[in-house]
């Protein structure tokens, strides 16, 4: 891989917000494809930030910072990426479920999805199932991400699944869940389609859900 791309990757890992723009510009000046800069530099860097988060080296503030660094770099690439990639990835509706108002994890997921080309519709916290149904109908989005931290409110996931089922939309929409009290087992119990243990996994999960539609 070209050194200039590795520098971008390193800047993401080191949360170097001051130099990221210049480093991306250097890549472009050297004639490197924007898609390669994004995938091998930025995405790969974020992945490694995620690994460091999982072993405890990085913490919440670092994830937020990583998002800021990526945001700083994206305008340089966005325009060219849009033109090149045939279509943007899909729309994702994100919400913290009814009865819960914790949103740090959901916000990090939203940030990661949007820098990875998804259009994110964030409905906020304490969102009733009807509102999610309404947004699915309005936006035509077929991907929904639900966040829940309080184990008392896991039933709210089922309510969303049931509401979509009643409206005859369940087969057309894929639901991913995440948050402190969620698990693979809970996913099955609630009838959701995917579960992510950490925010970093979100992009991969939604890519797979998108492909399965």
């Amino acid at each position, binding site marked *: 891989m070209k050194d200039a791309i590795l520098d971008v990757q390193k800047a993401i890992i080191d949360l170097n917000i001051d130099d990221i723009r210049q480093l991306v510009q250097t890549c472009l000046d050297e004639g490197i494809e924007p898609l390669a800069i994004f995938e091998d530099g930025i995405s790969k860097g974020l992945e490694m930030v995620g690994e460091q988060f999982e*072993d*405890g*080296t*990085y*913490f*919440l*503030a*670092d994830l*937020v910072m990583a998002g800021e660094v990526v945001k700083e770099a994206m305008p340089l690439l966005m325009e060219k990426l849009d033109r090149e990639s045939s279509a943007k990835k899909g729309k994702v509706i994100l919400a913290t479920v009814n*009865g*819960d*108002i*914790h*949103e*740090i994890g959901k*916000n990090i997921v939203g940030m990661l999805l949007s820098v990875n080309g998804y259009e994110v519709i964030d409905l906020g916290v*304490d969102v009733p199932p009807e509102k999610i149904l309404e947004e699915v109908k309005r936006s035509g989005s077929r991907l929904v991400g639900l966040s829940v931290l*309080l*184990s*008392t*409110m*896991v039933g709210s996931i089922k309510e969303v699944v049931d509401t979509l089922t009643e409206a005859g939309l369940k087969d057309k929409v894929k639901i991913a869940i995440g948050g402190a009290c969620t698990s693979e087992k809970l996913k099955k119990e609630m009838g959701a389609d995917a579960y992510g243990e950490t925010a970093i996994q979100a992009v991969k999960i939604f890519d797979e859900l998108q492909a399965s539609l």
Partner: protein
Amino acid sequence: MGSVSLIPGGKTRSFKTDTLLLDALLDMGLHIQTACGGKGICGKCSVRAEGALSEPDENEKNLNVEKNGFRLACRSRILGDVSLYIEENETSVLNKALPSFNPDDTYAAAIDIGTTSIVVALVNLASKTSAELATVMNPQRRYGHDVISRISSAADMDISDTMSNLVQDAVLHTMSAALKDLGIPFGHIKRITFSGNTTMLYLLFGLDVSPLGMYPYRADHTDFADSEIAEKPALTGSLKIKRVFPDATISALPVLSGFLGGDLTGGLAVCHVKGFTKNAFFIDLGTNGELFLTDGRGRIFAASCAMGPALEGMNISCGMTADDGAITHVWVESSELRYSMMGNGSPRGISGTAVVDLLAIFLETGIIRRSGTFSRDLENRRLPSPARCEYTSASKKIRLWGDIGVTQKDIRNVQLAKGASLAASRLLLGQAGSSSEDIERVFIAGALGRNLSMDNFKRLEFIPDFPNAEYHYLGNSSLMAAQEACLDETFITRAMELRDRAQEVNLSALPEFNKEFINALDFK
């Protein structure tokens, strides 16, 4: 099914297969110590056992208890018939060194129902003295270690009833054993006052806890004065305690909302009784932190925050409560780490106060950075002996004495706790329109022991720096208030009046909460 038989007493009871031996013993009314909360590090729950139990796990093997036929009750599961060698009468629940109680006097009991443990104190109504009789594990712990998981479990009505019975049985068993030991007739107990967080009181009185676990965490039932309880047969009807102590009036401290319970109202009332009614800041440090401040005009603002159990040593890899075998205090002397501990022998774990000391030392010596991350070049650096770094691919750890150490994850859990309390304190100050300079007195209550080094506590910034304040360590404000309420019939009414004046601020609903929380995670 399986069974547990106690030898030589002969008591036998059946249990479902896979029941934790510890839960079975608690059900059988035995007093078992679990300082590490069931992590299998403190070894306090070891019992000599024979029969069908699960294989010992790594922790049990490390402690090397099994060679003499001993097993850790907190790690062993019942697979069939089990015999245990336990002298039932040896397991006296009483704390040592109790003052003498005159059996002819009249008494009251102050009972603090904590999520983790239940503390029973006896109050002599004649001499106006009181003493803590016993601390026992809250047997509801099998339905979860924190209030949220208890509320989830209580969605099943049978489990909700079981939890109500378990806690009443634990209180009754402890009280009757203690009173028999002291020779005090049950009829001499004239008053029983409970305190606890809202969920614990709801479960005790058999109320529906489901609204408490759901935003906006409303509590419809907030008063538990004796008249209140007498008027609602539903509450007393379920109360076995009333049947065993028919001569006692039963009441509990009021609560403010789902997450502001007896720690807060108790602290509020105690501070006011002491005359600190203005420019005071109070925080009860616990899994759920509860705080209030009074401004210069005496207005009261209250809030809660989710701290997690780090200060109780529960989500710390080598954490345990301040009990025999626990390191409670650590300091540096001629570039070596020194410690003091409870009891003798080699230390088994570290208590919350020692965790605070260690992190402050790590910060001062550059072992961790302001962000809480272990410094990069630790392998090549001289650390205060016996600290040495152990990096594996999966985790990073500073090893201290024996197996005891601090991991990166431990530090993160302390940061989550202090981030929550610091952000909550700053936001509450902001909502009240007060500044940290205005505060004249700071009261710290809760899980940490009296060994808390105030300097190290301040170094880690669990709360903002209050430059003009005197700091006081209050201890268990909830129990303290219950004791006061036993002696002073107007105390609960006054606590209710103060509670009514308090304005609750729902901090996590504020738009700036997340940013404030993330900013508060770093050390200074």
